[in-house]
Structures are given as C-alpha cells and as structure tokens.
C-alpha cells in the first residue's frame, strides 16, 4: 500500500517538479530583462539554469525512491520489489 502511494506520488510530482524550476527561471529572467533592458540574455541563462535545476529536482526525487531498493536487506525483509 505504501509503495503504491509512493509510486503514484512520484508519477504526479515528477512532471511538475521538472516544469516549475524552468518556469520560475524563465519568468524571473524576463522580469529582470525588462528591468535592466538586457533582453534576451538573462532569460537565456535563466532557462539553462532552470533546466538544470529541474533535472536536479527529478534526480533527487527518484534517488530517494530507489534508495530502499539498494539496501541488500530489502528483499530479505519480505517486501515485494
């Protein structure tokens, strides 16, 4: 039951956590560009940073999920893989 909830949590959260950093950086970049008149440089850097941050978020979430499975006692404890 807990595993099912975990998998569903991962499914619904992964897409959003990939997208949100990109959008944050995009809007922050556009905002700063308008303020400073440096279009489109900060936006470009922002998008690159956002993609990397989104990748990091997804990596952290999946690493958390697969941590149990690397435990050699995981299958001995009688849990299903």
């Amino acid at each position: 039951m807990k595993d099912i909830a975990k998998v569903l949590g991962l499914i619904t959260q992964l897409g959003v956590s990939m997208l949100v950093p990109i959008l944050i950086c995009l809007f922050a970049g556009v905002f700063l560009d308008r303020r400073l008149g440096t279009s489109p440089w900060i936006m470009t850097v922002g998008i690159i940073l956002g993609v990397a941050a989104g990748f990091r978020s997804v990596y952290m979430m999946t690493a958390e999920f697969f941590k149990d499975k690397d435990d050699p006692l995981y299958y001995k404890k009688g849990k299903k893989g």
Partner: protein
Amino acid sequence: MKSCMLDKITIIPNLVGYDTEAPVREGLDFNISVYKEVQFMGHTCYITKTMVTTWFFMLVLFIFALCVRAKLKKYTQVPKGGQNVIEMLVETMDSFTRSNMGDKYAYFGKWFFGVFMFILMSNLSGLLGFRPPTADLATTAAITLTTFFLIHFMGITKGKAGYFKGYLEPIPILLPINIISEFATPISLSFRLFGNILGGMIIMSMIYSTAAKYVVPAIAHIYFDVFAGVLQTVIFCMLSQLFIKDKIPD
C-alpha cells in the same frame, strides 16, 4: 464584481480562478468571488469565497476536536464505541509517519494529522457543493509554506554545517542550481495539489452546466473528488514527510 489583487496581469487571474471583469456563463462559475472588501491598517483586504469556506471547515474541525477531547476525558484502557474510531485514525497516521520518517521523528504525525484532515475536508467539500479551498493557489501555497519552513528548520537545527555544505555538493559550481531547486520544491508541491483539485472542479462545473448533469455527475464525482482528492491528500503528506526527512542527516 471587482477584480482581486492580481488585476494588472490578465493571464494569472484566469489561470488561478480569480474574478475578472469578463462575463461568466450561467452555471459555469468557478471563479473565486470576493464577498467583501475590508480596510485594515491602510490596506484593502478581500474576504473571498475561499476564506469563508476555510473558516467554516476550521470551525467544523475545532468543534470535532473539542467534542473528541471532552469525550476522551473518561477514556477506557480497552477502547469501545467512538474511542475505537479515534484510536484507529490516530494510529494509522502515526504508523504512516513512522514508515516515512522513522521512529525518532514520529512526533511529526501530530502536525501532519491536522494538515491531512484539513486538506481531505477541503478536497471532499466539492461533494457538498462548496468551492474547494484547495482549488485556490493561496491555500495550497500557505500549507506548503509551512512545509518549506519545516524542511529548512529541521535541516538547520539537525544538520547544522552539513546543511549548508549540502548546497555545495557535488561541486560548488552547482550552488545556484541547488538553491533554485530548493525553492522550486514547495512551489511544485503546491501547484500539484492546486492543479489537480482545480482541474477536477472545472470539469465538474462544466458537466453541471450542460445536459450531461443528468447522467455522469456521480461517476465524475467519484473520480475527481473522492479518488483524486484522497490520493492527493495522501501524496501531499507523504511527499512533505519525505522532503523533511531528506534534509535530516541519519
């Protein structure tokens, strides 16, 4: 009706459901209407539908908690009657927290029980004809702000220097990426809950505004309100606990 706080930007009110000047089709009303404007310390505060519904649910939960407390004044060692139900609820949340955060941090169960009950009630309130408070970004943002605070509070108090060092790993150049990613965590949490509930509510409003309301509402309610509502509540609590646990060193 007058538009609320975000009237300068037109896309966001439409996105999050705040009132705009645009006419609303009869029966297809999923905007957050503003009931009253109050002057408070020189600022205009808006009393919205979300706030009134939230207050109502807070009142219900308060009364329920007080009743339970009064009843459990004379508890018995072997539970009987209503005490069984209360013990089952508390024990379920307790074991849920233990399985996510370990025995040492089981005290988080008390906080997450409150969060769980509030989000569950909000999500299910669509069944009673309310506009779910969680279909407002303000509510979900407020709840995830507490999660954000807990994540970093526990990180700093338990992790100390290791918490700050974590931002420089694996290489110091990744510092900005790590910081952006940390700030994105609560935002994506709130957006997921908000988006799921808002989507369900909009589809339900659309169904009710057409002739389909004589056929499918029950099935749609089971999926969008009961299934998605309960699932999102469980996932919200679970992810919050995992994120908090993630920052605490073993």
